[in-house]
């Protein structure tokens, strides 16, 4: 009898959900290894269920989901040809530089919007008000997209040396960047304002991930100069989103420096040795 037919419901459900996640891997990798990965995951589920029950399954899912995020980035980044990797890292550096400007301009537009119509100094801005509103709505998501591309570049450049903490930080930054963008798109299209929380949380955790990467970069001496930049950028990003708006300028400077470092030093890219 096929053992999968006698599995508990929790194991069956988990395996079905993992099967859905497998669809995110590159097609060739999925076709070659997908069934085996599913089989191994099912074996792990059975063991976790037998030894730890549902809490064991939850712990397994936490580990597996982290593994999924790491390996999916790895497989997608290796799907391309290696010669493209260096180019992508350079481009992601430029993306961070442009993103820094978009971030600063977006926040500046947001601050100017808070004008007082009775104030003689801000009154001349009245006719430009709608354009300022429009520019913030475009500039901040554009900055988010560019920071996301920059985080991908940081991952490709430093994943090998950043250790588990650094890699985790960058994975968090990438995933949360995607979540923030999805929340923003949903907020725009559904007009359901509670997606605002998803956007803010995603942005906060993106910068949180950059802080983690910064700590790992300090520990492992990854950056040739301006070593505190990722940590300072992360903290300033979080504080400027949380209400200390003037710090958006420092965040922009930090993003600019990170972008400059990336595009000027994409690393020596060669076909990787047998690394996991």
């Amino acid at each position, binding site marked *: 009898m096929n053992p999968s037919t006698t599995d508990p419901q929790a194991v069956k459900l988990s395996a079905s959900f993992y099967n859905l996640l497998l669809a995110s*891997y590159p097609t060739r*990798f999925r076709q*070659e*290894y997908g*069934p*085996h*990965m*599913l*089989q*191994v*995951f099912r*074996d*792990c589920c059975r063991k976790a269920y037998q030894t730890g029950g549902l809490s064991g399954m939850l712990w397994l899912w936490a*580990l*597996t989901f*982290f*593994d*999924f995020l*790491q*390996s*999916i980035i*790895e*497989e997608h980044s290796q799907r391309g040809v*290696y010669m493209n990797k260096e180019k992508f890292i350079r481009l992601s550096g430029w993306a961070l530089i442009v993103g820094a400007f978009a971030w600063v301009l977006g926040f500046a537009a947001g601050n100017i919007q808070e004008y007082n119509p009775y104030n003689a100094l801000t009154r001349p801005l009245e006719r430009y008000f709608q354009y300022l509103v429009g520019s913030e709505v475009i500039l901040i998501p554009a900055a988010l997209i560019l920071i996301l591309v920059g985080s991908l570049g940081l991952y490709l450049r430093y994943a090998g040396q950043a250790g588990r903490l650094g890699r985790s930080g960058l994975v968090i930054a990438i995933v949360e960047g995607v979540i923030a963008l999805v929340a923003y798109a949903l907020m725009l299209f559904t007009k359901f304002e509670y997606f605002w929380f998803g956007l803010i949380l995603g942005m906060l955790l993106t910068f949180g991930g950059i802080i983690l990467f910064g700590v790992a970069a300090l520990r492992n001496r990854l950056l040739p100069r301006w070593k505190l930049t990722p940590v300072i950028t992360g903290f300033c990003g979080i504080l400027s989103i949380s209400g200390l708006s003037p710090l958006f300028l420092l965040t922009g400077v930090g993003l600019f420096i990170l972008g400059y470092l990336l595009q000027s030093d994409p690393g020596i890219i060669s*076909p*990787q*040795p*047998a*690394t*996991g």
Partner: protein
Amino acid sequence: MSDAVQSPQEALPLTPAVFNILLALADGEKHGYAIMLDVEANTSGQVKMGPGTLYGSIKRMLAGGLIAECDERPDPELDDQRRRYYSLTWLGRRVLAAEAQRLSSQLALAQAKGVLLRVI
């Protein structure tokens, strides 16, 4: 890893995942889940690999010629025939030995500098 590894030194240093997979296969061919369990047992649970890391590493090790897929399938009475079994190649064994030697040299250096005494 896009091409086969030409010499053991070219593949060094190995990541913990690759080193532990090679070590798990050192005493005979195994399938994916058995490798995972072996790595967990060998490292007292310190290295836990998910299916993504395991098969991502296996893919690169196959491409590098460090491991090979076994043609022979086990007795269906004893195991699931759908499983794939992997074994070390001659190159894989040499890479494993070279990495073990490299780690051993580092250990000797740590001992010479008295680092280990502080750890213990």
